C-alpha cells in the first residue's frame, strides 16, 4: 500500500482555512523563518479519508475478534466511555484554567471526576491515596519507585537494591534501574512462584523493596504473598504491587490487604480504556497512609463547602511528574466504567476472567505442554515444546492463529517458560468464541504433528507475509524524507 506522501498531488487541499479577518500581516525576520514549507502531502479530504480507512482495514482490534494477548487484558472497550470523553465540557477544557484565580470553580466537574476516581480506586485497592498523573503503567512504576526512594531518604535509610522476580515484566527492572536502584532477580520456584526461601536469603538492610505482580505473569496467585510483604517490611522495605494483572482479582482481593504499600494500575487493562494501538494509557499509583505525603503534586481535595480544589503545598512530595493531572481523557473513561460496575460488577469481572482462562487451560491441556498445571487466574501459559520438536515453533503457531481469524496470544513471555504461549481471554468473551479458538488451537496442534509445513508457512490471509526483521534493523529505514 502506498505511503500517504506518495498520494500527494500538488495543489490539492484537505481543509478550507478561514481567511484572516485582521488587517495586520506580520513579516517575521527572514533569518527566523524556514527556507521552504514542510514537505507534507497535498491531499483532498476524501484522499485522506480513503487512505486511513484502508489502513484501518489492515489492523486487528478487540472489535475485530478475539484478542487473547496475555498480560495485556484486551477486554472490550465500552462505547459509552468514548462518547462521554468527547463531551465538549471535558474535551475542550484548558488544563491551566484551575490554576487561575477562581479558576477552580470553573472546572468543578473535571475535578470531581479526578477526586471520585481516586476514592473508587482507594476502595478497590485498599490504599489511602492515589495520584492520577502517571500517563502509562511504566510511568506509574517509575513514579512508585520514586516515592519508594523519597520514603527511604526521609527515614534516613541507606537502601540500594530492589528485588524483582525473574518472571516480571521487563518494565519492572527498567523502572527500578532508572530510579537509581540495583536490581536483583529472585528465581521462581518449581511452582512458578517467587521463591520465599530465596527472598529470605537475599533479604538484608539494603533492600529498598520488592516489586511483585500478583497473580504473576504465569497467571498464578502466590499464597505466600503476605509473608513476602512482611519480610520486606521487617527491614523497613516497601512492597510494590504491579497492577498489570489486577483483572484476575478485582473486587475480590485488595492489594492493600495483602500487605502492599504501593500499587500501580493500568487503566487500559482492568478498567477497559482503549489500548489505542499502544497508548495512550494511564497508570495511577496508590499508596498506604505512610506514603501519602510523597504523592506527586498536585492532588485534588474536597473542601468543607463541598467544592473541589487542587492542592499544591505538599513539602514531602516527589514533585511534578506530568504537566497536569494525568491523561484525563483516559481517567474519565475508567471512571465511567467503574460507575457502571459497582461491587457486584467488579467481582463478576474477576470471576468470569478466571473461569474463561481455566476453561481454555483445561481444554487445551491434552494438546499443549502446560508447565504449571494448577488453577490459574486470568491467564494460562502453555509451552509449545512438543510442537517445536516437530519444527513448529511458537511463532509459527501464532501465525496459524492469525489465519484462523484470531489475534495470537503473547509469545515467548514470560522468559522462564520455553516457547511460551500466554493466553488471556478476559471476562468479555463468550463460550462460543472460546470454543472456536480452542478448536483452532487443537487443529494447529494436530497439524504440527501430521503436516508441520501447513503451519510453518502461515500466515497466508494477511496483506503481507512474515517480514524480514533483520533487514529492517540492518538497513534502517524509519522515515520517508522529502
Amino acid at each position, binding site marked *: 500500500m502506498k505511503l500517504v506522501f506518495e498520494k500527494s498531488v500538488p495543489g490539492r487541499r484537505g481543509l478550507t482555512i478561514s481567511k484572516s479577518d485582521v488587517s*495586520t500581516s506580520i513579516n517575521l525576520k527572514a533569518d527566523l523563518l524556514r527556507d521552504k514549507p514542510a514537505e507534507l502531502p497535498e491531499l483532498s479530504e476524501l484522499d485522506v479519508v480513503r487512505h486511513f480507512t484502508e489502513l484501518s482495514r489492515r489492523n486487528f482490534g478487540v472489535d475485530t475478534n478475539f484478542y487473547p494477548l496475555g498480560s495485556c487484558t484486551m477486554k472490550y472497550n465500552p462505547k459509552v466511555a468514548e462518547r462521554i470523553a468527547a463531551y465538549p465540557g471535558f474535551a475542550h477544557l484548558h488544563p491551566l484554567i484551575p490554576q487561575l*484565580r477562581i479558576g477552580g470553580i470553573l472546572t468543578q466537574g473535571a475535578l470531581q471526576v479526578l477526586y471520585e476516581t481516586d476514592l473508587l480506586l482507594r476502595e478497590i485497592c485498599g490504599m489511602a491515596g492515589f495520584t492520577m498523573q502517571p500517563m502509562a503503567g511504566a510511568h506509574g512504576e517509575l513514579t512508585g519507585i520514586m516515592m519508594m526512594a523519597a520514603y527511604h531518604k526521609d527515614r534516613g535509610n541507606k537502601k540500594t537494591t530492589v528485588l524483582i522476580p525473574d518472571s516480571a515484566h521487563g518494565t519492572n527492572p527498567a523502572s527500578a534501574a532508572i530510579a537509581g536502584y540495583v536490581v536483583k532477580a529472585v528465581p521462581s520456584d518449581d511452582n512458578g512462584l517467587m521463591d520465599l526461601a530465596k527472598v529470605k536469603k537475599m533479604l538484608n538492610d539494603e533492600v529498598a523493596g520488592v516489586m511483585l505482580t500478583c497473580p504473576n505473569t504465569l497467571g498464578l496467585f502466590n499464597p505466600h504473598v503476605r509473608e513476602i510483604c512482611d519480610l520486606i517490611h521487617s527491614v523497613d522495605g516497601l512492597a510494590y504491587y504491579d497492577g498489570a494483572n489486577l483483572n484476575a482479582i478485582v473486587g475480590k482481593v485488595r492489594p492493600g490487604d495483602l500487605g502492599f504499600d504501593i500499587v500501580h494500575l493500568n487503566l487500559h487493562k482492568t478498567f477497559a480504556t482503549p489500548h489505542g494501538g499502544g497508548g495512550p494509557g494511564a497508570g495511577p499509583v496508590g499508596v498506604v497512609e505512610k506514603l501519602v505525603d510523597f504523592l506527586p503534586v498536585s492532588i485534588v481535595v474536597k473542601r468543607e463547602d463541598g467544592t473541589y480544589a487542587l492542592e499544591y503545598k505538599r513539602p514531602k512530595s516527589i514533585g511534578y511528574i506530568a504537566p497536569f493531572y494525568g491523561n*484525563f481523557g483516559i481517567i474519565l473513561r475508567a471512571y465511567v466504567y467503574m460507575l457502571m460496575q459497582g461491587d457486584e460488577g467488579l467481582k463478576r469481572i474477576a470471576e468470569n476472567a478466571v473461569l474463561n482462562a481455566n476453561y481454555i487451560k*483445561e481444554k487445551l491441556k491434552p494438546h499443549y505442554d502446560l508447565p504449571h498445571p494448577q488453577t490459574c487466574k486470568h491467564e494460562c501459559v502453555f509451552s509449545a515444546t512438543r510442537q517445536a520438536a516437530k519444527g513448529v515453533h511458537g511463532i509459527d503457531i501464532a501465525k496459524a492463529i492469525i489465519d484462523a481469524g484470531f489475534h495470537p496470544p503473547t509469545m515467548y513471555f514470560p522468559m522462564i517458560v520455553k516457547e511460551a504461549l500466554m493466553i488471556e481471554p478476559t471476562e468479555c468473551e*463468550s463460550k462460543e468464541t472460546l470454543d472456536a479458538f480452542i478448536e483452532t488451537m487443537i487443529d494447529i496442534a494436530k497439524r504440527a504433528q501430521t503436516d508441520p509445513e501447513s503451519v510453518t508457512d502461515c500466515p497466508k490471509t494477511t496483506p503481507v507475509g512474515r517480514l524480514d526483521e533483520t533487514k529492517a534493523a540492518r538497513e534502517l529505514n*524509519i522515515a520517508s524524507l522529502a
Partner: protein
Amino acid sequence: MPYISNTDEQRAAMLAEIGMTPDDLFADVPKEFLCGKLDLPEARSEQQVRDHLAELAGKNHIHLTCFLGGGFYDHFIPSAVYALTSRSEFYTAYTPYQPEVSQGTLQAIYEYQSMICRLTEMDVSNASLYDGGTALYEAMMMALSATGRNKIIIDDSVNPIYRVMIQSYTRNLKIELIETQNEDGLANREAIGKQLDDKTAAIIVQNPNFFGCIDDFTDLSEMAHKKGALVISSVYPISLGILKTPGAMGVDIATGEGQSLGMPMSFGGPYLGFIATRKPLVRKMPGRIVGQTMDAQGRCGFVLTLQAREQHIRRDKATSNICSNEALCALTALVYMSLLGKEGLREVAQLCADKASYAYQKLTSIPGVTPHFRAKWVFNEMVLDLPCDAADVIGRLIEKGFAAGFPLSRYYKGMENSILVAVTEKRTKQQIGMLAEALEAVL
C-alpha cells in the same frame, strides 16, 4: 451484563465441562485475603451514567474565550480527524507485536515518524512519547548517555512546567542541573557560555520559548558542538509551519508537545510527546520505532525495529523504561497534518502570527499595558505588563467571559504584573477587540 457475554447457564456448563465449582476458581487464594462487599456506589445504567457525566461536564466552563496557552493551545480541529481516529480497528488494537495483522498501526506510525522528520528537518523520530515534558526529560537522558557527561544547562525561558518535571525526575540522579536566567526574553548566551564546559552533556532551550519569543539557536549549536555538548530544543509544532526548524539550526535533539496537532485540550491529556534526532544518535533514542522492510515475496511492510534496546529485552539495561507510546495521539497528529498539508500548515502558522500581532497592537494601545520585553519577534504568544497584579486582572476577566492569559508570577519572580497571552487561528478580530475592551474596563 453488557460487557460479559456468557449467561449463568453457559458458566455452569463451562464449569461442569472442566470439572470445577465456582469456589474452585479462587481456591488458591487464602480465604483471609478475600474481601467482602466493597463500599462502592450502586452500579449505574448507561443512561444514568451519561446523565451524570453530562451534568459534570456542564460544570466545566468551556464557554470562556480562550487566550490561554503556555504550551497548550486551542487550535481548530478538522472533523475528519475524529472520524478517522475513532475507527475502532485503530483504537481497540494494542502495540503491533504481530506485524501481519497490524500494518495499519505500523504504517501510520512510520508515516508519523516521517511527518515529524519533515516538520522538524531532523533525520529520525520515534513512534511518540507521553507528552512534551517527558519527551524533554527523555532527550536529556539521551544526551547524558550519548556524551557520558553529567551536566545539563537549561535556560529558564523553557516551559516552567517542563522544568519542574525535570527537577522531580533528576532528584535521585547524580547530575548537575544548571538553570540560566533568560536575557530579556531570550536564551541567555552569556550565562550559558560561562557554564558550558567539557562536562556539559547538553544545553536545553525552547523555540518559540515560554514567553512566545522566537529565537535562532544556530550560534548555540556551534558553541555547544565545539565543547562536545548537544543542543536539545523543545519546539511548538504549529510554529514550524513558518519558523526555522531545529534541524536547520543544528540542534541535536528536537522534542515537543504535539497536542496542537489535532488533539483537544482535554484538561491535560492524553497528549503527544515527540522526539526527533540525528542519525548517529538513533540507538540512544528511547521508545518504539517502526521501520520499513519486506516479506519473502518482496512485498513492502512495516515492523517494530531496534527492539533490543527496549525494556522487554534489555530489562534493567534498557535505554528507558517506556513500553507504550501514544499511538492513537500520533495517528491524530498524522491525520491532522495530512489534512492540512504543505500549504495548510503554513497558512495556520501565519494566521496565528498575524492575529497575535493584531492582538499585540490592540492590547498595547490600552493605557498602562506595555510589552514586557524590548522589541522581540513573537510567534503567537506575548508577555504584557499591566499596571496592577496580573492574576487579579485575569480573575476579573474570567467574570467577563475570557480566559485572558496566564499570570507569570506563578513561575517567575518579579513578574507579578505580567500576563502571557496566546492567540490561535481560532480567535477572531471581534474576540480580540472584545478582550481589549474588557481589559481596559477592568484596569
